């Protein structure tokens, strides 16, 4: 009898280390319990995980594709380039003198001659049509001078283009900057689009997980009331739901990782062929350990964040009656 109940003075007191150990014990218990409870309703859990997985995978795939497009930009040093195609009858030494004269101009930073032979060799290397060219009586390709202008401003370049057009031996002046700039603007647009889609979907994930937690809180209402009645603190009550958010986020991220890896496997063939046709040896890489870690961490954090919001809004409303 005496060891069952006692007067107030002997009510057990705990030291700090005991309380810390108890805190750790409860964390470990709830960590496992939250996952096990998810498997009590497997269909609901899997549905949430799948929705979260899709919402996370889409922006990740978009980001990877953009990253691929971004490698195009790295190949370009950022300065506009002008190609002067010379008359096919210009002799090589004359072309050399012309190149030197152009390179000496104050408005030109550099000029490089690509002779007919060099042009032919390059064409053979990249086009795969070498045999056809060999069957022709002579080299059909013109020599060209690649020019980097000193100024990058549109007006200066227009003046330069007009003056180069006047050169007698020049057949055609090609300025490649315009479509490059257009491409890069499109890339930037796509980047921003991806970012907005990513943000929208992240908010979606917050709402999905938040809603699942709201329903779970509703289902465990009587338990929450009883725990509060017998002296459970707010953090004790909150803990299972924070871990639930963690598991929902982590499971969703794991699903997203699977979707991304599968997509990469599916897309890598065509993308490599596309890259090769642009003289680029880019290949879509599977997510490595670091990126995998980042995806899983990001997903779990989103889950916990959703849980914090949801628990903050719904838990305080539940008071024992």
């Amino acid at each position: 009898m005496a060891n069952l109940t006692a007067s107030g003075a002997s009510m057990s007191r705990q030291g700090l280390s005991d309380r810390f150990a108890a805190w750790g014990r409860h964390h470990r218990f709830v960590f496992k319990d939250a996952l096990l409870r998810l498997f009590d309703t497997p269909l609901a859990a899997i549905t949430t995980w799948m929705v979260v997985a899709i919402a996370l995978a889409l922006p990740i795939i978009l980001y990877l594709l953009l990253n691929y497009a971004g490698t195009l930009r790295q190949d370009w040093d950022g300065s506009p380039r002008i190609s002067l195609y010379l008359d096919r009858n210009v002799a090589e030494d004359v072309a050399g003198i012309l190149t030197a004269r152009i390179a000496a101009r104050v408005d030109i930073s550099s000029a490089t001659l690509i002779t007919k032979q060099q042009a032919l060799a390059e064409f053979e290397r990249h086009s795969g049509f070498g045999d056809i060219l060999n069957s022709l009586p002579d080299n059909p390709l013109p020599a060209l001078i690649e020019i980097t202008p000193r100024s990058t401003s549109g007006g200066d370049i227009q003046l330069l283009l007009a003056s180069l057009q006047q050169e007698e031996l020049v057949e055609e002046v090609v300025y490649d900057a315009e479509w490059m700039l257009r491409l890069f603007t499109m890339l930037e647009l796509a980047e921003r689009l991806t970012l907005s889609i990513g943000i929208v979907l992240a908010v979606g994930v917050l709402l999905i997980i938040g809603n699942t937690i709201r329903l779970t809180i509703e289902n465990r209402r009587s338990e929450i009331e009883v725990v509060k009645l017998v002296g459970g603190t707010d953090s004790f009550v909150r803990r299972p739901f924070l871990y639930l958010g963690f598991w929902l986020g982590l499971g969703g991220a794991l699903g997203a990782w699977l979707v991304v890896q599968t997509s990469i496997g599916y897309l890598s063939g065509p993308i490599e062929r596309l890259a090769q046709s642009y003289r680029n040896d880019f290949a879509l890489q599977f997510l490595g350990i670091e990126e995998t870690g980042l995806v899983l961490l990001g997903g779990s954090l989103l889950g916990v964040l959703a849980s914090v919001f949801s628990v903050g809004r719904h838990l305080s409303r539940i008071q024992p009656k």
Partner: protein
Amino acid sequence: MLTFDQVSKRYPSGKEALSGVSFNMEAGEFAFLTGHSGAGKSTLMKLIIAMERPTNGQILFNGENVNRISNSRVPYLRRQVGVVFQNHQLLFDRNVYANVALPLEIGGHRPSEIRGRVRAALSKVGLADRENHFPITLSGGEQQRVGIARAVVNRPPLLLADEPTGNLDPELSKDIMDLFLQFNQVGVTVVIATHDISLVEQIGNRRIDLNQGRLRDSKWPI
């Protein structure tokens, strides 16, 4: 240990559940709280564990001012008060053992200690062989005793019981009352709300009677 000083409680609906209630209980006392249903018994108990806050007056428990206690301190107040609820407030998704262990888990006790205390509490209320049963399989009286075991497992200095014999036949009621008397004998302060006047008169302890929110105390008759 428990002092009510001119405590009033008015609900937002305008109904005054308690008006100017004052009484004092020493540690180790045993008192009945009587009155018709709606006389304010439940409200008084809810005020002690801060489920409700008084509109006026002061409540002191173990030297602490209950009406000014912050929300974050409320759980620690509740750990010092064992409450037996009229509707038992058991969790039906876990067995008897887990129900009784709940206050100890919340209190952060060691698993070995929890095991010992839960078994002791269950054998005290005569349910030692039912620890793996689920509450739904128990009779009303057995559920009531699970609630009692849970209320005392934490060894609180104050034990409150709201109509603990409400739905029980006289013989079972007597058993339950004997349990409370035993707890009282080892020093627990006990307050039992009941409208079972015959039982109260049979035991003959102090009686705090509420009538339409006002108090008549047998210890200090007005």
